[in-house]
C-alpha cells in the first residue's frame, strides 16, 4: 500500500540507440499511448523493466516492513474486536507484499533476490515505517493517514501500463478500503473518549502528519523519475498533485475529529480552492531515507531475524519435498 520513496534513484541503463531498438521502442510507446497493457513476455525497453522492478519491489518491501509498526500492537490491542481487525489488516499487508513480489517476479527477478536487496539495506522501502508506534493511537493514525496517503498514491497505479502491476494494484485497492476506515474509527473513538485518549490521538496526529505528507515523495522539482514514468504510464499524477489532494481531503476529517493539524501555516486559499500548507522538512526526509530515522535499524533487524531464524524451516520443507519426490520415483 505504500508507494513513497519509489522515485528513489536506480541505475537503469539509458536507451541503446540502434535502429532496431528505436523501432521497437517506438512501437512500445505507441502501445502505451494507446492505453494497451504491457504483459510479461512482451518486448519492453530495459529502462522500463528496471524502473518497474525497482518500483514494484520497493512497494512490496514497504508492505512487508509495514507489517512491523502496527504488528507491535497485535498483542496489546485494547479489545478483541480491535485485535481481530488489526491481525486481519497486518495480514493483508503481508498478502499485498506477496501480490507485488509476484508481479515483480514476472519481470525476471526472483523473490529471493529482492529479499536479499531488502535485507542488505540496498533496496528502499517507504520511510514512513521507520517511525515508532509507542501508543495505541498510532494504529489509528497509521490507518487514517498512512493508508489514506497510500490509497491516494495507489489508485492511479491500477491503470498502470504494466498488466501484472495494475492487476495486483486493483486487488490491493479493493482489499484496502477497510484499512483507512478502521483507522479513522479508532481515531474517532479516542477523540470522543477520555481526556487522556484525546491527548493520545492529538499526539499521534502531531507525529504522523508530516511523515504522511512526505510519503508522496520529493516535490516535483526534485523528483528525477517523474517525467519518464509518466510517459510510460507507470505514474499518472505528480507527487505534488497527489500531496495536495491528500491535504485537501484530510484537513476537514481532522476538523471533524476535533484535532488540530500541526501546521501553523495551514490555511484555506479561496482563489485556488486548495489548502496551503507549510514547508516540508526535506532534510528529515533525506535522513530517514538514508537510514537515520528513529526505527530504521529495528525494522531491518526484525526482517533479518525472521529471515535468518526461518532458514532451517525453509530448508527442511525443501528437503522433505525432495524425499517425497524420491520415494514417489522409487515406488513408480
Amino acid at each position: 500500500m505504500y508507494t513513497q520513496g519509489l522515485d528513489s534513484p536506480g541505475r537503469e541503463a539509458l536507451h541503446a540507440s540502434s535502429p532496431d531498438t528505436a523501432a521497437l521502442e517506438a512501437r512500445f510507446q505507441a502501445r502505451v499511448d494507446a492505453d494497451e497493457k504491457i504483459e510479461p513476455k512482451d518486448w519492453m525497453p530495459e529502462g522500463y523493466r528496471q524502473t518497474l522492478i525497482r518500483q514494484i519491489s520497493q512497494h512490496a518491501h514497504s508492505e512487508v516492513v509495514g507489517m512491523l509498526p502496527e504488528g507491535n500492537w497485535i498483542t496489546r490491542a485494547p479489545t478483541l474486536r480491535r485485535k481481530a481487525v488489526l491481525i486481519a489488516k497486518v495480514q493483508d499487508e503481508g498478502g499485498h507484499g506477496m501480490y507485488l513480489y509476484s508481479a515483480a517476479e514476472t519481470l525476471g527477478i526472483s523473490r529471493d533476490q529482492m529479499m536479499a536487496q531488502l535485507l542488505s539495506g540496498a533496496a528502499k522501502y517507504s520511510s514512513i515505517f521507520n517511525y515508532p508506534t509507542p501508543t495505541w493511537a498510532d494504529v489509528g493514525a497509521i490507518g487514517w493517514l498512512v493508508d489514506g496517503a497510500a490509497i491516494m498514491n495507489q489508485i492511479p497505479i491500477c491503470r498502470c501500463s504494466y498488466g501484472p502491476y495494475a492487476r495486483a494494484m486493483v486487488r490491493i485497492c479493493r482489499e484496502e478500503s477497510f484499512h483507512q476506515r478502521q483507522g479513522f474509527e479508532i481515531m474517532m473513538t479516542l477523540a470522543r473518549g477520555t481526556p487522556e485518549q484525546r491527548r493520545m490521538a492529538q499526539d499521534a496526529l502531531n507525529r504522523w502528519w508530516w511523515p504522511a505528507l512526505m510519503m508522496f515523495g520529493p516535490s516535483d522539482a526534485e523528483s528525477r523519475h517523474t517525467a519518464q514514468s509518466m510517459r510510460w504510464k507507470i505514474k499518472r499524477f505528480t507527487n505534488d498533485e497527489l500531496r495536495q489532494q491528500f491535504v485537501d481531503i484530510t484537513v476537514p476529517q481532522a476538523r471533524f475529529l476535533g484535532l488540530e493539524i500541526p501546521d501553523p501555516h495551514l490555511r484555506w486559499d479561496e482563489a485556488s480552492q486548495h489548502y496551503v500548507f507549510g514547508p516540508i522538512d526535506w532534510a528529515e526526509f533525506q535522513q530517514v531515507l538514508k537510514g537515520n530515522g528513529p526505527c530504521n535499524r529495528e525494522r531491518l533487524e526484525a526482517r533479518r531475524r525472521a529471515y535468518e531464524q526461518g532458514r532451517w524451516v525453509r530448508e527442511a520443507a525443501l528437503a522433505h519435498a525432495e524425499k517425497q519426490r524420491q520415494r514417489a520415483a522409487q515406488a513408480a
Partner: protein
Amino acid sequence: MNEKEWPLFEVFVRSRSGLEHKHVGSVHAADARMAIEHARDVYTRRQEGVSIWVVRSSDITASDPAEADAFFEPARDKVYRHPTFYSIPDEVKNL
C-alpha cells in the same frame, strides 16, 4: 543467500461453482500441498473461491509473444465464424 528458493506455483481460483478457474497470481511453496494452503491463505481471505488449482510455474508452456502475429492474426479475417456475419431477415425467428 545461497539457499534454494521454494519453487513458484501459479494459482488458479474458481470463484463460484459454474465459473472456470481463473489465474490470480503466484505463491512460493516447497510442495504442492503447501502451495494449495498458501494459495488459500493468500488469495481466498475474502471468500474469493470455492476451488483452487496450483501448478508449478516451470511446468507452464506459453506461446511466444514474438509469434503472436503468426498465431493470432490468421483468425482475424475468418469473420464467417461469427453469427453476425450472416444477414437473415428480421422476420425469421429462432435462428
